[in-house]
């Protein structure tokens, strides 16, 4: 979910926005506020928080990034990095460094084909799938989606065709941050909220979107799925068995990647994929989002 929001924004604004994941954390904390402090039901809290965070995203764009549309990418990237640090510390200032948990209680897992899956993970899967379908419909079946794609492909041409690029960008910020809020809240529901969670999310989002092809929503989904699978598969597999050719030899004993290196696996996958797809899986070679021109 986060990768889709991030890649859509990247497609429009054409710079790596380090603050994006922090907006998801702001939204998740707002949902926490509405759920735990105000006492609203958890899913209603997330919906309201998504709308509020979406507005905060729009405000951030109007106040900061809109003033810098003609500035080079490096400056925008550093600005977003500064904004990310500011947001992170504001969250810490308001809610403190202590991790926070939604008011949902403990849940027992379902056992499906030998795997354990918690009810929150089931809800997350359903919500993610629903949002992906909705975003697909929005992008490919609505006028706004058509305008979004037009602005993403060629902003000047879109403007010349009568599309208000600023209005489209505003909508993209709103939708992107709202979706990110839902994603951040689901992470919070699954574990807990803490002020620095945005940073750990950012690395995964960046890897997934680059893998899928920057600016490509479907690519972001595919990239996320590949990386998520690779992380777990990489930890699960006994590399000793592979080196020993499935038991034919006995070069080494059991060899598993320590779980502390889980975060490194996406980068390894990224390098391997780039050997064959330098612009990412769905990236256009030599194009705006291909990254290999």
């Amino acid at each position, binding site marked *: 979910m986060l990768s889709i929001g991030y890649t859509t924004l990247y497609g429009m604004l054409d710079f790596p926005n380090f603050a994006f994941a922090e907006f998801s954390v702001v939204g998740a904390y707002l949902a926490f506020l509405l759920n735990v402090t105000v006492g609203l039901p958890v899913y209603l809290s997330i919906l309201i928080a998504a709308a509020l965070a979406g507005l905060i995203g729009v405000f951030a764009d109007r106040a900061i990034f809109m003033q810098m549309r003609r500035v080079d990418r490096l400056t925008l990237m550093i600005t977003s990095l500064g904004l990310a640090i500011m947001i992170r510390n504001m969250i810490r200032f308001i809610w403190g*460094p*202590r*991790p926070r948990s939604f008011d949902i209680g*403990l*849940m*027992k*897992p379902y*056992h499906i084909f030998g795997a*354990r899956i*918690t009810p929150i993970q089931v809800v997350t899967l359903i919500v993610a799938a629903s949002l992906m379908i909705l975003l697909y419909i929005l992008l490919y079946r609505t006028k706004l989606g058509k305008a979004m794609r037009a602005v993403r492909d060629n902003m000047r041409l879109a403007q010349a065709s009568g599309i208000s690029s600023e209005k489209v960008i505003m909508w993209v910020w709103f939708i992107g941050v709202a979706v990110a809020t839902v994603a951040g809240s689901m*992470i919070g529901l*699954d*574990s*807990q909220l*803490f002020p*620095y*969670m945005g940073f*750990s999310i950012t690395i995964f989002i960046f890897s997934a979107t680059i893998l899928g092809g920057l600016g490509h929503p479907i690519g972001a989904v595919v990239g996320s799925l590949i990386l998520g699978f690779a*992380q*777990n598969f990489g*930890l*699960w597999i006994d590399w000793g068995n592979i080196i020993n050719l499935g038991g034919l030899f006995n070069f080494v004993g059991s060899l*598993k990647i*320590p*779980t*502390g290196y*889980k975060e490194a696996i996406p980068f390894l996958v990224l390098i391997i994929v780039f050997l064959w797809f330098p612009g990412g899986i769905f990236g256009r070679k030599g194009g705006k989002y291909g990254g290999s021109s």
Partner: protein
Amino acid sequence: MKFMLKGSLIMVLSLAVFMVGFSAQQETTEIGMITPLTGGSSKAGLEMKRGAMLALDEINQAGGVLGRPLKIIVEDGESTAKASVDAAHKLVNIDQVPLIIGVWGSGPTIPTAEYTNSQGVVQICGIASSPKVRTIGPYYFSCQPLDDIRGPMLARGAHNLFPEAKKYASIVVNNAFGVGIEKYFCKEVENLGGECLVKVRYEGGKPNYRAELQRLFEVNPDVVNFVAYGKASKVILKNAYELGLEPNDAWVAMYPDMWKTTVIPKTAEGIIGLREGPKESPRMIRDFEIPYRKKYGDEAAENDLSLYSYYGYDAAWMAAMAINFAGSMDPDDIRRAIPNVWKRYEGVTGDKDVDEDGISVRIEQNWVKIHNGEYVSIPAPAEVKVGD
């Protein structure tokens, strides 16, 4: 004329500053304390400070140190080695204290104590259990036994409680403390005929620990060694509970005080813990818990009464006794007085004694089982073998 006026003014001001400094020096006996009041270990650091301040009140009510009130200059170690060393520089060079209490954690304690040793300043009671503190030098004295005593003790306890258990697994925080306990725990398990089949070292600050737990439970362990700090332990135990992962016999944990007030009680049900210090005795409640509650309020007492507040309390008392025994503020006199103090002091963290390296060699076992979020004392299942 103008020059003379300026000169006189400077002289008067200098004299005033000197007199103020002199009179302040005469009024109190000053020692230092470094404890993390911000950053990841701030909760433990605050608890340690509160314990020390409670002792300070009692020390001063009892007449102070060397006939003067004792003052503890508290510096924030910010949960980092660098800030702790900076604080030590300030206490040694500016405040010129002869003795420093602290720091929290082996990471900040070792470089800080190496510095204070190089300056000939006494440092006591760091919450540091890494065996590396043994070689710091003659001015460092620990108040707690090290991992090479506690790790085997935890393993023996688990073995005695579950003699049939052979498959052990271990999940520890990836730092000197966690790895130290893992090393000595697993070594002792092997001596006792078992095996640590999986060793997982986790990094803090992750949104979930499912991958670590899946790895941990791949071998269907009988007993799991669990060494974790508050924030992560909450997620680890919650993830384990929600995934339905539990060892055949039990989790065994060193220092459940590190996370007991943070975790969801239901997820910690049945965990066997090895705390430090004597079981709650009427004396301990009378001398420590009631005054603590009175000074800081019920809420603080519910949240903060842990090993670290006990250590802060004992450290301040032991520092005061060491200076009184030495009869001077000379660090070398204080250093020489310390073994005698450690032998005589009956602390809320148990009786003390130090070996020739200044390391505490006594541990009072306080075995507990967690039930409904509370400690329930159980008989000590392991014999104390000092210096194993």
